């Protein structure tokens, strides 16, 4: 449902960008435009921080002096269901976000290590979706009429599958001994490539008619060379934008599946797994629920914001954001003065 909603604007926004080929003077230009957008900057910084947290998880946990799997019996009140002693789930100088009820494992350490799984699975799944989508989309867009018809129907079929229920079914069928993060990534990419394939196919068919592509065809370039040298650069804008949109969807999907107990295996932590064990504790230990819930919220918001900002940054018609901001500032300045005058 969300997939179809989001892919429509991405597609329409992408087409003009493709015509200009490539937008705004290469990646550096796009990055500059992105940075100039206030939302884009915030999102970019947040995403960078989250990725940094995931990469430096052992170091961060070491800084706190904890690791994610050590039990702390002494911090729990065994007589009251194993709830943590102290306020906010046992927050202290040693345990920055408190400890997990019934085990006493450090929540901060579990959260930063959980970022590795949550972001890792989401990034892996997105890359998988991207590769599959590009492959199918390009083949359909450049291939023969028959290949196009066949692949397009397969894409329609994949698009119509209820992704979440299929993931649940597949996760339940595969033996428990299969590495879970890898399995999650494979299943999410195997079920979520269709929207990208559609965008890529549509875009490819538009680009195929451009003069420079026709020229390449006339010089006798093969399909592979055309795809790589002529079509792919034109696809960067829509695909990059769409990637930033599906990534948070994949984070949510991983969290949802882990929440249902189908995700990572103990003692590994992920944000969804943390949320899952925390839900029953919300009345007694609200901090335990809030920690993974807020992290997920911030993460998904940041990626969604980044997607939107990327769309604007890639779109040459969206006017130059730098000038816009300056203009706004200038327009904003007189306002207090008029207020002063009014006073």
């Amino acid at each position, binding site marked *: 449902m969300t997939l179809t909603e989001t892919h429509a604007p991405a597609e329409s926004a992408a087409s003009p960008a493709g015509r200009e080929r490539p937008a705004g003077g290469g990646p550096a230009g796009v990055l500059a435009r992105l940075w100039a957008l206030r939302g884009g900057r915030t999102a970019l910084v947040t995403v960078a921080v989250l990725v940094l947290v995931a990469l430096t998880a052992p170091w961060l946990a070491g800084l706190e002096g904890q690791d994610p*799997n*050590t*039990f702390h*019996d002494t911090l*729990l*009140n*065994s*007589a*009251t*269901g*194993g*709830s943590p002693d102290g306020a906010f789930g046992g927050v202290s100088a040693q345990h920055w976000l408190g400890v997990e*009820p*019934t*085990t*006493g494992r450090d929540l901060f350490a579990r959260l930063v290590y959980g970022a590795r799984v949550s972001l890792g699975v989401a990034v892996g799944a997105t890359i998988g979706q991207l590769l599959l989508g590009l492959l199918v989309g390009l083949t359909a867009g450049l291939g023969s009429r028959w290949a196009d018809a066949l692949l397009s129907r397969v894409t329609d079929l994949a698009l119509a599958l209820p992704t979440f229920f299929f993931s649940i079914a597949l996760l339940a069928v595969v033996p*428990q*001994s299969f590495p879970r993060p890898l399995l999650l990534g494979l299943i999410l990419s195997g079920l979520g490539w269709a929207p990208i394939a559609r965008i890529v196919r549509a875009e490819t068919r538009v680009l195929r008619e451009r003069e420079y592509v026709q020229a390449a065809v006339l010089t006798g370039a093969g399909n592979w060379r055309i795809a790589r040298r002529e079509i792919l650069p034109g696809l960067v804008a829509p695909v990059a934008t769409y990637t930033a949109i599906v990534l948070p969807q994949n984070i949510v999907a991983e969290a949802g599946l882990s929440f249902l*107990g189908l995700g990572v*295996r*103990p*003692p590994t932590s992920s944000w969804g797994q943390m949320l899952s064990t925390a839900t*029953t*504790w919300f*009345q*007694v*230990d609200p901090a335990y629920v809030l920690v993974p819930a807020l992290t997920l919220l911030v993460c998904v918001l940041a990626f969604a914001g980044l997607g939107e900002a990327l769309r604007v940054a890639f779109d040459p018609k969206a006017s130059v954001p730098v000038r816009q901001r300056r203009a706004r500032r200038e327009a904003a300045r007189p306002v207090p003065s008029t207020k002063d005058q009014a006073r």
Partner: protein
Amino acid sequence: MLRPARIALFTAASVALTGSLAACGSGAGSSAGGSSDAFSAATCQGGTLRVLDSAKNSKGFDPAVLYTSGGGAIPRLLFRTLTTRQSVPGTDGTKVVPDLATDTGKPSENATVWTYHLKPNLRFADGTPITSADIKYGVERSFSPQLAGGPPYLRDWLVGGADYQGPYGSGNTDLASVATPDASTVVFHLRKSEGDFPYLAAETQFAPVPKAKDTGKEYNADPVSSGPYTIAGFTKGRELDLVRNPHWSRSSDQQRLACPDRIEVSLGLSPAVINQRLSSSVGQDANAITTDTSLDAPTLAKVSADPALKKRVVTGKFPQIYYLAFDLKKAPFDNQLVREALSYAVDRTALVNAEGGTQLAVPSTTFTPESLTAAHQDYDYFPAGATGNPEKAKQLLAQAGHPNGITVPLAYDTDDTSTGAPAATALAQAFAKAGITLQLQPLGDADFSGTVNTPATQPALSLTSWGADWPSGGPFLTPIFDGRQIVTGGGNFNLAQYNDPAVNAQIDKINQITDYATAQKQWAALDAQLGKLALTVPLYEEATSVLYGSHVKNAYLDQWRGWYDIASVSVK
């Protein structure tokens, strides 16, 4: 200093007030939690009791199919059996007492023949008299392949039980080892001595079934009642309505008070919903109890902080041990030193906390848990202390030729919320300190029993549990340590695959003892003797903490099963 004292005085006065109100018999509107002190068996009758259960009971109530301990909770309201558990709080609740029979059975010929006489004037809910033929028919039905599901003991114990296929169809439809010399006498002929037979006779397979009313597989929806209630309405998996059986009277039944006029059971509710409804106790839920939902750790934490709620919590224990099972046929557990190392390395405090703390689990160093009082003997041959002794474990591993530690698989049941992931994780982190790396092997419920209980596929180490079918050391130790009980095809519980002829002979000898106390002492001694071999690592026994509604009285957990005895609960 003054204020707490005044508050204390005030609450004491209000409790006394509500107490006296309840004693007047009104009880209505009093918000004080369960004033069971005002309970009187003589005036307890009336009202509607609500039961909120998570089980679906979708199989219905066929006495042949039910697998209960001591007759179960709801089944015991519908079926009277030859014997039953004693309905009293405390350890006397583990005693077996006569129900339909005049005594708990007369043994003869080395406890291989058991004779029962029925009480006079017993009637089914439809008014027909209960005879010994109905008891015999009830037992025979449980052998029928289409009514499988009950406990395995009858087939194992009765002469000719192994080949008997039940009373339906052609061929041999009569089980000769259950004899009925007259309408009020039934005699059981066993192929071996079984001093525990009176305990088995409390199971629903010993409830009378009138042959004329038997509908085979359909009987589970509307069985003919012999107990204080009969089914007024039953939607499988959803709800069950029980009303009084007009042909039942207290004068012939000393074990069931049957206080409420009506019992309405809601089935298949989520445990969280049940605990929430019982703790808020609003409207009709004030008259509610549950027969199967223990408090979970978060609810327990909430309840502990609220003195009013805390009053409505009762705790009890079902004798069930959670333990680590070794396969002695597989390395490295063929070496006793390695088994001892694991016994030393275990952190029982972490395990108890993982279960939800001391109110939901109690550490145990003995295989027969403390709650199986009569058959329990304390021992701790490999003292791990409260949180484990990894140094000693390392030392033993080095002695056994594993100076660099070992890596072993551990199978656990992911669908079992208590022996599942939390306990496995707690074990793994404690073992890691002793250089023992556990490779966790999570298995779904069906996979777990299929894999672990089949010797060919059994992993070297599994996390599992064992409960007593009745409060005796016999059914507790025999399936686990009797070498003749090793089943190669599946359904094997002797996970150690331990077969010592001397121990087998000892088991046979104890089975001949018909005096309960003497037999239990022997079982306890056998358990203590087997404990020295480190065939298992006993971890903890589960405790039950259950809430009841604020109007409910005389709610206690019977010690036989560790659950409410509905037959004694009152809402008036």
